[in-house]
């Protein structure tokens, strides 16, 4: 695939052209936080950010998603609500690109999930390489950043006054065709500068080493003391925050909500495996009523079972659970403790 240069002065004109063809999603500042949102005004977009507080997962697997509508007239009529909207996400970070690659495998394994996969098929990802790593991120140890090797359609590296643009797919190439005049050829020096930017970024990680592979191995071989789970259980606030910010959490609940009269909609909502009711049955029996069991399974799932199924842990090192966890039992901390044999 080809590489190009995009002068920073052309970024907004380029995205304006993109907006005319497809729905644009990009990072914006919202109450001093960075979030990804649909863009109506190009000037809302910010490129001055480390990463968003919640991953862009919600544009593929929304927190609340109407999957069908029903109407109870003489016969019940059911109408699926599937989004086929074409979208471009600008500014997604490498960790979240790898998060999506994990979700791709999960939602297409066995029974295919049309709601996720259709949105995924209709999106073009413009990944922004992290030249200044975020405080809690450890993508470098999860092999998911600061630069992506796969999964992007276009990948931008900030060279100061311009972006080095890598094309990762046909979709990416087609996006460039929308505004070909803004893109110019690279010269050898650009490649060197890109290399330097990534190298510098890699050297700037302040995060302690997080050995996901070793933790996975210790879990698989049951080399983790029961005391650790007990302590994690004591510290867990059962808020579900870790699940909600995680780019690879997939669990959901499904509920019916009345609209009016005989009409209603079926909605799927993010759910959290650390909440007490997650496994409770209608009769009251709850196989994981103990928080110890729920926390334990969460880490076994993320780190051990995912390797068996997808040959990689589902932690992409975004560090968001470190940011939100009130009990300091985020993935990085737990992995370190498992590795140390606590």
């Amino acid at each position: 695939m080809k590489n190009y240069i995009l002068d920073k002065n052309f970024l907004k004109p380029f995205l304006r052209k993109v907006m005319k063809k497809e729905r644009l999603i990009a990072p914006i500042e919202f109450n001093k936080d960075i979030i990804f949102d649909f863009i109506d005004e190009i000037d809302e977009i910010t490129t001055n950010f480390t990463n968003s507080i919640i991953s862009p997962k919600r544009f593929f697997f929304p927190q609340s998603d109407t999957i069908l509508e029903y109407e109870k007239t003489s016969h019940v009529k059911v109408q699926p609500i599937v989004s086929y909207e074409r979208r471009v996400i600008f500014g997604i970070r490498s960790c979240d690109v790898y998060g999506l690659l994990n979700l791709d495998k999960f939602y297409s394994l066995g029974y295919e999930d049309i709601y996720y996969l259709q949105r995924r098929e209709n999106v073009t990802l413009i990944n922004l390489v992290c030249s200044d790593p975020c405080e809690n991120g450890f993508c470098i140890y999860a092999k998911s950043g600061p630069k992506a090797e796969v999964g992007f359609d276009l990948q931008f590296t900030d060279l100061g006054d311009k972006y080095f643009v890598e094309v990762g797919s046909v979709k990416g190439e087609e996006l460039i065709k929308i505004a070909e005049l803004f893109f110019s050829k690279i010269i050898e020096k650009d490649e060197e500068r890109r290399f330097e930017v990534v190298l510098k970024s890699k050297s700037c990680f302040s995060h302690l080493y997080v050995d996901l592979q070793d933790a996975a191995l210790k879990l698989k071989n049951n080399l983790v003391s029961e005391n650790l789970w007990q302590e994690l259980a004591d510290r867990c606030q059962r808020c579900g925050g870790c699940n909600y910010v995680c780019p690879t959490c997939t669990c959901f609940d499904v509920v019916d909500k009345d609209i009016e009269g005989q009409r209603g909609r079926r909605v799927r909502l993010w759910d959290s495996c650390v909440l007490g009711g997650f496994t409770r049955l209608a009769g009251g029996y709850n196989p994981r009523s103990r928080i110890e069991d729920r926390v334990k399974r969460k880490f076994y799932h993320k780190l051990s079972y995912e390797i068996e199924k997808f040959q990689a842990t589902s932690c992409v090192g975004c560090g968001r659970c470190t940011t939100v966890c009130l009990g300091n039992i985020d993935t990085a901390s737990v992995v370190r403790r498992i590795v140390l044999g606590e």
Partner: protein
Amino acid sequence: MKNIYLPEIAVIKDIKEEAFEIKTYVLEFLNKETKTKFTFNPGQFIELSVFGFGEAPFSISSSPYRKKNIEICVKKAGSLTKKLHELKIGDEVGIRGPYGNGFPVEKLRKKSIIFLGGGIGVAPLKSLIDYLLKVENGYKEMYILYGAKRPKDIVGKENFSFWSKKAQVYLTVDVSDKSWKGEVGPVTNLLPKVSVKAKDCLAVLCGPPAMINAATDRLREIGLFEENIIATLERYMKCGVGKCGHCTIGNKYTCIDGPVFTSKEIKELDKEF
């Protein structure tokens, strides 16, 4: 791409009162093609929509040999089943499925089989028993041991009298009343009535977890191989297709890897939990 979350509409053709707060529903698909194409294995389940109240998993309790419609047996337990109990013949529901692995019917061929059921747990067993009674060489001999809380909780009394023509059927209740002349105590107390060659015997279990655990221990004691003790597990299978995550046990999804597991498999899962 098929939409796996889209239910097919079915109509309630009949409702039978089986026991206290337990009813059997006869369901028939409206769509003619679905009606003829729908097949399943004993032990598989469906996701039933009661529109406005969501979806929940139910074992199919009728035999796959029965065409045109299917049966589910439902105990009033939560908001969806409470609403379902209010529905009438002619009302419409949604069905997705069938899901899950079902019972290993090939493994049961020409074997002695002990069925152990507790309460509403007889529902998936009924599908298998009715199937085996019809299929050629489906089994060698059959014992059906069943326990309910009280006499009025016995699910489908006429099924047991029908089965007793071809199988040895024993019933028990935890708490008896004046009407009850039979056994009192846990269903595992009925096991001494069984006389089989343990090595040539399989047991099929469905009931509350305490019953499954106790029965598994007793069956091991009398010499059944662990891979021949088969249980179907109840979990919160919200989606039925291995996505929502509620029914996981260790690295398995009850909805796609189960709900039927051997005692050996359950022991493996139990290692971590």
